């Protein structure tokens, strides 16, 4: 008897850890108490098809696609002791009717079956109902290729329709906002978009009207879906009912290459996927990272990439000869720049860098300033207003990085004195890296004219490039590799989705060669990895990190005390049990 007393039952072992035992398709696993059945299946590696369920939204359970068969131990008669089999589990009594996996939680000794006949039949039936009024739009639908309806009808549907009657007609091609098009015939009433606008975007403009098969998603009369987070509904939509105007009919999704990188429009550094074909960016979508941007990103940031494709890009290094820019080679441009700088006293030179540059670039900028022996080194501040969700007040993506890499709590503090110096004439040569000085930096065209030497690197032919004596074409964020530190102190990685146009170069190479041209030393930084390693050796916070260690989701390297409001909001919702998270 002593044996049975010491050997604990699986239920007790699990209970000690706050877990429960669940049998999923015949395999027993332990999952945390209170887990939704659908999440338990995910843990077990079993996919449960679903439309309306989303971990970051409430679960209304209205699509019925996630039906599974559930079983519990039979209820005991009064005074009856539970019977355990050899493995220590009670026998499961399977229920004859299915339950939805998305809104039910697991219990001790529960059985879930996703492969039984009843489940297969249910899925087939639900798919058939979904497709009754669905138009045959796939050839013109932007969702094709990433459409849940397509995927699940292949996996779980019937190959032929039994519906001979006329399909219900609904509004098609409706402009419901400046950036979004709605096709009601394609809609399957999962209500994800409605819940998103209500719960996350906090502007509940969407809702259902009509009843039965005529149920239609619509915008509140007199309103538009113009919220700055509206395009997330397009990502959420499991079918092609909501599509983006910007991406409309641009390219089929199966041609696009996905590159994981980060957004550079504000200090949050939302994780994104850049979708490219050839060297052209077609769209940008948010990528899940529960420590940065959850699953969302603002429209203003998402759509800010067209200048990379179509803008007036600088494609070759240029030198101004008699007031005219002439294309030249990299070697000549950099040597020319180094020679020109040597004619100035160290006090007459200023370096204006950008907090839009990566850590590696900023590290090289510091080396550049050290080589020139100038003290005048600054970034340009961009302060806007936080929207209380994901957009940070700091619109520079790498201010934290600049602080760490330069070991300077106020990396933008010298800009004012540089500006004064230029106006007074004490600063005669400026190196502007990745910044248009006539914008946030606050220089006027006259200020730039006063300069005896202006060297700039940028991606677009802007007024600063126009005024520059030497122009060095750089790379856009989608063409760069490197790392940045976001507002919370998280080190994240940029990956290149495209290559820079023409002769333009990734900025770190440009800076490396610039530093080498000035110092006259041989190249000891062959790759970005070696540059990062040099950075990691020099800066305490980066110690032990490598580019590959950063991974797709980044690593926390310092605590700044800043938080991202939307994440705090979602954390609170998760604690209240409103969302799975």
């Amino acid at each position, binding site marked *: 008897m002593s044996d049975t007393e010491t050997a604990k039952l699986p239920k007790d072992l699990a209970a000690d850890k706050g877990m429960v035992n669940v049998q999923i398709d015949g395999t027993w696993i332990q999952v945390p108490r209170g887990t939704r059945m659908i999440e338990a299946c995910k843990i077990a590696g079993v996919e449960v098809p679903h439309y309306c369920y989303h971990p970051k939204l409430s679960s209304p359970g209205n699509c019925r696609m996630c039906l599974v068969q559930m079983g519990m131990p039979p209820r005991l008669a009064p005074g009856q002791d539970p019977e355990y089999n050899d493995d220590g589990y009670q026998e499961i009594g399977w229920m004859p009717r299915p339950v939805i996996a998305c809104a039910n939680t697991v219990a001790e000794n529960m059985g879930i079956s996703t492969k039984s006949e009843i489940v297969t039949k249910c899925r087939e039936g639900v798919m058939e109902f979904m497709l009754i009024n669905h138009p045959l739009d796939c*050839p013109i639908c932007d969702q094709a290729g990433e459409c849940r309806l397509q995927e699940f009808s292949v996996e779980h549907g019937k190959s032929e329709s039994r519906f001979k009657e006329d399909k219900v007609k609904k509004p098609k091609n409706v402009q419901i906002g400046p950036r979004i098009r709605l096709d009601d015939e394609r809609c399957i009433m999962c209500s994800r978009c409605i819940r998103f606008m209500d719960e996350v975007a906090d502007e509940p403009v969407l809702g259902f009207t009509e009843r039965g098969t005529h149920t239609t998603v619509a915008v509140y009369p007199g309103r538009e879906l113009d919220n700055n987070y509206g395009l997330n509904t397009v990502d959420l939509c499991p079918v092609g009912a909501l599509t983006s105007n910007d991406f409309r009919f*641009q390219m089929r999704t199966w041609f696009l290459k996905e590159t994981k990188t980060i957004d550079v429009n504000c200090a949050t550094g939302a994780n994104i996927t850049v979708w490219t074909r050839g060297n052209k960016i077609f769209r940008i979508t948010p990528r899940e990272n529960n420590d940065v941007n959850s699953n969302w990103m603002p429209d203003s940031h998402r759509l800010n990439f067209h200048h990379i494709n179509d803008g007036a890009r600088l494609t070759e290094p240029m030198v101004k000869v008699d007031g005219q820019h002439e294309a030249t080679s990299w070697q000549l441009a950099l040597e020319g720049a180094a020679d020109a700088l040597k004619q100035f006293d160290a006090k007459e030179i200023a370096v204006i860098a950008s907090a839009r540059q990566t850590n590696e670039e900023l590290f090289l900028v510091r080396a550049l300033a050290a080589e020139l022996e100038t003290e005048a080194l600054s970034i340009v501040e961009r302060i806007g207003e936080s929207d209380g969700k994901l957009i940070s007040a700091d619109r520079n993506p790498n201010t934290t990085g600049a602080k760490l890499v330069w070991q300077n709590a106020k990396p933008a503090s010298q800009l004012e004195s540089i500006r004064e110096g230029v106006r007074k004439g004490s600063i005669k040569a400026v190196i502007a890296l990745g910044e248009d000085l006539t914008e946030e930096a606050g220089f006027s065209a006259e200020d730039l004219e006063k300069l005896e030497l202006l060297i700039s690197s940028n991606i677009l032919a802007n007024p600063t490039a126009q005024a520059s004596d030497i122009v060095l074409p750089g790379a856009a964020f989608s063409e760069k590799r490197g790392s940045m530190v976001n507002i919370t102190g998280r080190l994240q990685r940029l990956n290149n989705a495209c290559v820079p146009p023409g002769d333009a170069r990734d900025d770190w190479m440009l800076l490396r060669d610039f530093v080498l041209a000035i110092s006259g030393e041989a190249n000891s930084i062959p790759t970005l990895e070696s540059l990062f390693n040099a950075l990691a050796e020099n800066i305490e916070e980066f110690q032990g990190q490598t580019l590959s260690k950063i991974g797709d989701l980044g690593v926390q390297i310092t605590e700044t005390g800043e938080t991202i409001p939307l994440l705090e909001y979602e954390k609170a919702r998760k604690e209240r049990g409103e969302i799975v998270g």
Partner: protein
Amino acid sequence: MAIKKLTRPKLTLSEKLIFPTILKGMAVTMTHAIKSVLGKTKAAESLKGSGTGATMQYPETKWDDQLPEYYRGVPALVTDEIGRERCVSCQLCEFICPPKAISILPGEIPSDDEWAKVEKRPQEFDIDMTRCIYCGMCEEVCPEQAIFLRQDYAVTGTSRENMVHNKERLYEIGGVREGLVNKWNEVK
């Protein structure tokens, strides 16, 4: 591998003498020569030969009216019986095309267009005939029955650009097809 030893064939006396064999060969040649002069060769009828042997005197004589229905010539776009261009630029042909001969620039149909309800059509549709291998995958994959391999086979051009069939040229070759796709009709 087993080794098989071959023995030389035993020659007859006439073969050993060589000349009778030469004469034999010449007789065969002469028979054909005479037949072709009289226009009585075997292939004259069946293969539409010129009469001088089985050889067709291309391009003076051509196969064209003999081509079977299923002949796979150049791929081309078709319009339907009411003049709607069938292609909706779903780009499946571009995707499936093994030599990557097809390139499509999709575009939206303006809302004042007669076929605005179709929403999408190609702005540009190019098939590079120097790349095309006439495999017919594009025809097979097309969900709108918009691209067909027609009976034209002689594609010539004086430059590479010349060999790229643009949308206009493709519709010119393709012509009109009737039936098959009804989903964009007025009643639907």
